């Protein structure tokens, strides 16, 4: 993260004449802007392509014409149910949840100045999923009530972590470690609940703990979509301030950023995104964690990572869901696929990041 911010990266060696320097700086700035546009453009195209593919591919293949017909409300024999009721909400939720995880994850990583400090590692997601397991196994509620419960619990856990780590100002380091401790408590509570669950509840609960898009309907998609539409603009509005925070709290304050206020707004928005997405489809492993660093690798030191991360998250969930459904013999839920595919990248990332010498 820190490395992406060095402004000197591409300006090249100093030259004699001021005019030459100016030309170089302008050129580099233009190049950066072009690369950013290029990366965002390619990612968007990929997202649209995979989204379309996930509507067409399945046990029965439907051509683009049929899919488009269904999307625009025509009645196509067979396809209306398969595409309209089964595949479309699933694909839309993949897009929305991926964006939520991507945004939430990169916000935490940027704010805490550590790529390992994503919500799924520091206990934010586990609050929502432990609550969901509790709602299924103990309370026996489902539908919107369960989602609401998971969202409230996710926010509550985040608040608890925030309060516990604030002691003369919230320090990022302490917040990460407190989060790891809280995550351990929640995991053990969840394990206890699972060991008490009946086999039907168990299947249902495991879905929430691994992250799955199976059997998704519009009633899960809508709240998440609303959350994304409300909270994403809030985060994007803070993106400049978040960037400044990566320079360190003192420097950011010197640049005129109201540090605590920015941090609070960003935490609330990011936690909200993650909690809503988790309530809809469970904590899809490593998406929040990987999106930001992947986006940073693609983009280079070229501005805010928020939008590219959202796109990367979306792409990850869409592709992993396709892989989980069709590529392997067994049908795996999407969370297992992202977890297994994400692991090697995670290790690579940790090693690489430390080699750069980030001060975490």
């Amino acid at each position, binding site marked *: 993260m820190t490395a992406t911010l060095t402004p000197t990266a591409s300006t090249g060696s100093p030259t004699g004449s001021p005019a030459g320097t100016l030309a170089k700086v302008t050129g580099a700035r233009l190049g950066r802007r072009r690369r950013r546009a290029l990366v965002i453009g390619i990612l968007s195209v990929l997202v649209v392509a995979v989204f379309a593919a996930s509507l067409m591919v399945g046990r029965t293949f439907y051509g683009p014409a049929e899919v488009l017909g269904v999307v625009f409300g025509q009645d196509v024999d067979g396809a209306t149910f398969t595409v309209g009721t089964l595949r479309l909400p699933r694909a839309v939720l993949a897009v929305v949840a991926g964006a939520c995880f991507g945004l939430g994850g990169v916000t935490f990583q940027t704010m805490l100045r550590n790529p390992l400090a994503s919500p799924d590692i520091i206990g934010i997601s586990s609050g929502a999923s432990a609550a969901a397991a509790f709602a299924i196994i103990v309370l026996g509620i489902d539908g919107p009530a369960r989602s609401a419960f998971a969202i409230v619990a996710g926010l509550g856990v985040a608040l608890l972590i925030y309060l516990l780590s604030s002691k003369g100002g919230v320090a990022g380091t302490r917040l990460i470690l407190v989060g790891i401790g809280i995550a351990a408590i929640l995991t053990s509570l969840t394990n206890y609940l699972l060991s008490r669950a009946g086999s039907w509840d168990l299947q249902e609960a495991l879905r929430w703990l691994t992250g799955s898009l199976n059997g998704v309907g519009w009633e899960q998609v809508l709240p998440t979509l609303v959350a994304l539409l409300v909270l994403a603009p809030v985060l994007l509005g803070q993106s400049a301030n978040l960037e400044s925070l990566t320079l360190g709290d003192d420097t950011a304050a010197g640049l005129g950023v109201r540090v605590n206020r920015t941090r609070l707004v960003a935490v609330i928005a990011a936690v909200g995104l993650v909690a809503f997405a988790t309530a809809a489809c469970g904590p899809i492993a490593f998406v929040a964690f990987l999106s930001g660093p992947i986006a940073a690798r693609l983009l280079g030191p070229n501005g805010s990572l928020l939008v590219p991360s959202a796109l990367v998250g979306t792409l990850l969930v869409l592709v992993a869901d396709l892989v989980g459904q069709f590529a392997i013999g067994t049908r795996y839920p999407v969370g297992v696929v992202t977890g297994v595919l994400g692991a090697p990248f995670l290790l690579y990332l940790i090693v690489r990041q430390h080699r750069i010498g980030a001060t*975490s």
Partner: protein
Amino acid sequence: MTLTATSTATRPSRRRPGTDAPRSPALPTRTAWRRRLAWLGAGLVVLVLLCAASVAIGSRTVDMPAIVEALGSLGEPVEGLDQAAVVKRIPRTVLALVVGAALGVAGAVMQGVTRNPLADPGILGINMGASLAVVVGMAWFGMFAAHHMIWMAILGAALTAVLVYAIASAGRSGASPLKLALAGAALTAVATSFITAVAMPRGDISANIRSWQIGGVGGAAWDAIGLVAPFLAVGMLLALASARSLNSLALGDDLAAGLGERVMLARGLAALSSVLLAGAATAVAGPIGFVGLVVPHACRLLAGPDHRWLLSYSAVAGAGLLLASDVLGRIIARPSEIDVGILTALIGAPFFIHIVRQRKVREL
């Protein structure tokens, strides 16, 4: 770190700078020694009481005469439910003792080797790595025999330990507590994903795996204890043997080398002992977290920073903590019971947070 401090470092009585608990100044050596021995004795007495409680208390209420009778007729064929219940509690108690002692010592050694107050086989992901290896062994290679599981668990623990340490110590600032804890949490997440992926398509073993994944001593059996005992014994001896080197290592690598310590060798042996202990404990009882974190911290208050005392204290206190948690789990959830791995996390994680809150940010 003054020169006088280094010269007295390995003597148990003197205060050493740079360690947590500042001890009362300059107690005469003999008194301090006696006091430590007295605490150790007290710990052992408590441990015996806990053992008695563990045999007497369970989900089935057995009255005192029946317990005595059952204990008197050990070795004879079991008659009646009361006697069966009591007889089943004995291996369970023994297992809790050895696993608790192993985890306590493993934690103390890890905290010494990494010079990290937050080190614990659970936090560093070593228990989960051992679990993953066992699950892979079960699912792919049909390794259900207990001795296979032990080897797989130790292999997994060793690989994870190396990986966590390598990941955390890459880079300029070395293995800080934060980096170690994060690397451990990340590897735990990876291992959990893999366990789910391996177990999910195998409905036949997934229940088996899930119950094992929590960590408990309820399924104790003599043959499993017998198989794991040699590993624990070797690990324990190795740990106690490296106590003196750990004292030198606590001063920093350069000073330790100056004291004539072969730093890499000492560190490797100590790490090996903790991997053996944690791996074997996980193989027989599943991943039990936080015992290795809480116990050495509590013991350091009484034993001081000398590892020779600290390790003995940690063994006793670890056994006591696990046994007490197990008994507690049987009492509060009657007539069912709560697995000990869950209780230790509920006790230990708040303690972890407490330590984190106490420290200054720079130390993390």
